[in-house]
């Protein structure tokens, strides 16, 4: 029972981090019906950015956040303007290929630039443990989980409380109508990409103290992020949050109680199961 509780708490914390990685993926998917296969690669790049911010300037995640996230936002906007804008109207096959090409490009660019070695940083200020429901959890992980919750809360408040946020929601629901109402759809798309990549960067920054960076680190995360979005369902911010936490719990509990080697197998198996049984997700309504 104690073991189960420990696995559940650990899974919950990781689940929140997965939810953070999934957030931006679900945002783009929901707003413009494009699946960004390269999403987690931006998280990987943010991890490297955090690594060098730490090595060169001695920054820790809070400081790194201030420097890296604005860059990530710009990177997202640039990605949209240079690449994605050209395939928004293209058939889905072209879109899938374009972002898949982007995935390959970014991953092996990192490989070429940083080599295959694993890199991590220490964050002494958060290195203690926090006790949650009687289970000790690493301080870095708790910080990342809190960052995830804060990001979700901020984005939710912004979407509901500001005019631009409303405009973004309107664009997601019907871009043609939004255009007719004077919303600059192109800017909304660019904004969505900026926000999406910025949230991926938040995840990368907080992940690095306890999860080492490598060019292929996105491998596990990209599928987990897809699984979270599909599992949770589309149409709201709540979808990827619920999905991410569910994936974290599956991984934590099945991984601890059954077999740590196969923990990702359980996640992917759950993902395939959801695709086969309930492709609209736990909270989804629309038929895909």
């Amino acid at each position, binding site marked *: 029972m104690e073991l189960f509780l420990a696995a559940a708490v650990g899974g919950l914390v990781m689940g929140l981090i997965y939810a953070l990685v999934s957030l931006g993926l679900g945002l783009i998917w929901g707003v413009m019906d494009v*699946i960004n296969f390269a999403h987690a690669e931006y998280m990987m790049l943010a991890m490297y950015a955090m690594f060098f911010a730490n090595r060169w300037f001695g920054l820790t995640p809070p400081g790194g956040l201030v420097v890296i996230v604005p860059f990530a936002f710009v990177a997202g906007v640039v990605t949209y303007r240079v690449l994605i804008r050209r395939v928004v109207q293209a058939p*889905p096959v072209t879109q899938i290929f374009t972002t898949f090409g982007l995935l390959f490009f970014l*991953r092996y660019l990192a*490989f070429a630039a940083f080599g295959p070695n694993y890199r991590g940083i220490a964050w002494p200020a958060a290195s203690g443990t926090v006790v949650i429901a009687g289970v000790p959890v690493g301080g870095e992980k708790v910080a990342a989980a809190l960052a995830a919750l804060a990001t979700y809360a901020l984005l939710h408040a912004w979407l509901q409380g500001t005019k631009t946020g409303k405009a973004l929601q309107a664009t997601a629901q019907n871009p043609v109508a939004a255009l007719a109402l004077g919303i600059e759809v192109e800017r909304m798309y660019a904004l969505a990409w900026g926000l999406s990549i910025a949230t991926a960067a938040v995840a990368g920054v907080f992940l690095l103290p306890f999860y080492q960076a490598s060019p292929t680190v996105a491998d596990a995360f990209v599928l987990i992020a897809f699984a979270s979005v599909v599992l949770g369902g589309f149409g709201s911010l709540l979808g990827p949050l619920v999905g991410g936490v569910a994936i974290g719990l599956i991984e934590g509990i099945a991984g601890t109680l059954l077999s740590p080697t196969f923990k990702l*197998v359980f996640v992917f198996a759950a993902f395939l199961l959801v695709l086969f049984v309930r492709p609209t997700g736990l909270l989804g309504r629309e038929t895909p």
Partner: protein
Amino acid sequence: MSLPVVALWIAAACVPLVVHNAYLMNGLILACIYGTAAQAWNLLGGYGGQLSFGHAVFFGAGAYTSTLLLVSARVSPWAGMWAGAAVAAAVALIVGYPTFRLRRHYFALATLALAELVRIVVLNWPAVGGAVGLYLPVRLLGRTDAMMWRTKPPYYELALALLAVACALAWLVDRTRLGLYLRAVDQDEGAAQALGVPARRYKLLAIGLSAALTALAGSVFAQYVLYIDPSTVLDSSRSVLFAVMALLGGRGTVIGPVLGAGFLTLVSQYAGGALGGLGRGYDYVVYGLAIMIVAVYEPRGLAGLAARFRRARGVPAVEPQADGGSGGPAARHDAGPPVLDVRDLAKHFGGVQALRGVTLDVKRGEIVGVLGPNGAGKSTLFDCVTGFVTPSGGRVTLRGGDGSLDGRPAEITGRGPAWIAQQGLARTFQLMRVFPALTAMDNLLVGQEHRGESLLASLTPSPPAARLRGAELLHLVGLAEHVGTPASALSYGQQKLLSLAMALMRRPRLVLLDEPVAGVNLTVIERIKAHIRAQNAAGVTFLIIEHNMDVVMELADRLYFLAEGRVVTEGPPDAIQRNEEVLRLYYGR
């Protein structure tokens, strides 16, 4: 197959007589093996538009199955490779069956997840070599019955033969109905189903063939390199490589994957030497960049680039026979037995009640109109009848559905759209749907009779009768000179006429038209009206949704007026026009 093509293959087979450079031979052997896998990927991803990022699983299934059989059961790879193909095809069908219902994003994701899952399992499974991998027994080297040789030429001939088989298969798909149906499904699956194309069946056939072929390539690969482990045959970069080769060369063409495989294998072998000093990553950076550039600027790949410099081939015009009239002329207004019988049909989307118990019938030879304000549930009614939406309640029966004139009634409630369409029911869509990249003639051929069409028949060209019927209909709607024009190049009115012709292709007994004259000019309206009348006189029954009052009043024998998901009233046009409630609901008077 033309003489130059045969000569080219013979020349390719003679290469070992001239080339003795082992490094180049190695590149050519790998190019043939990868080319086979890329061609296999192309069958599914190129023609069917179903992108797989997990073909390494099938490649690995072939490599592991034949190797395990050889190592532990001493089964010759010549037999083992077929076992591998069977395993791969079985896995493919298991993945394809549930995911092909969904949008193609999900299939791509499922293949990605499957590949990771299989890789992790094999990596941690000692019985199949685990992370250490499997060595082929080198003591068998030099024995042809074990598919192992000490020199490269036999491997080259084997790999080349496999590539030839793959290309022949792609050529077959390209030239036959299967390729046409796969392209149609790729461009608009719903529209293809509305024409009776059993989309999932052909996608499953494509993935089965694709997986089996990839597995054969995997077996030969294992025999050639003599050592396999998860990172050589199951890695995700392997899956991507096959996809990239097909894409770069030109997906949906026979030559494309071969060009792509040859180009990438040889470039990476030689450029890999040049870039090698910089680390392993650079060639993949270039691949990634190449994929993006190709996807954005020339989605048809190298083959498409070549086509730009060639003039479009002229399409031979098909002379239609003198219009002999189609179908026996049934006397109009004899109010035959009902063809379509809808009882208490209900549909709700979440809390929205779109249909609240609609009951209507259409008798043979009638033209029945459905009127109603926007949101009355007219299109939902069509979607429920044609199987695009599953009704929440009620029953739809099609009489005379099994082909005979007074055949048994067929309950069609809840059946799939393709099956329903095959019972002799055709429809058009409110937002017109033609296959933009197919020629006008091919658009019609997608709509040929699909009932009783076997998988084997799909691997033969369209029968002459279908081509003749197509030519006849093109002639009828005045598009005869556009036989070879892609539908996307036709005007809106022409596309509208084409979609009407597509619905008529199979000589359906009942045609559902959703706003057939919306958005077209007066001349075309007159033509469409005339076609409907002529077809009706020839025995086709129509159910029509239309907002253009003049058209409905003129054409329809009977009208149903729908509002808020219910039938408000029913009767002859002039009675409906005078009905107080209709006037209030429709005209706001």
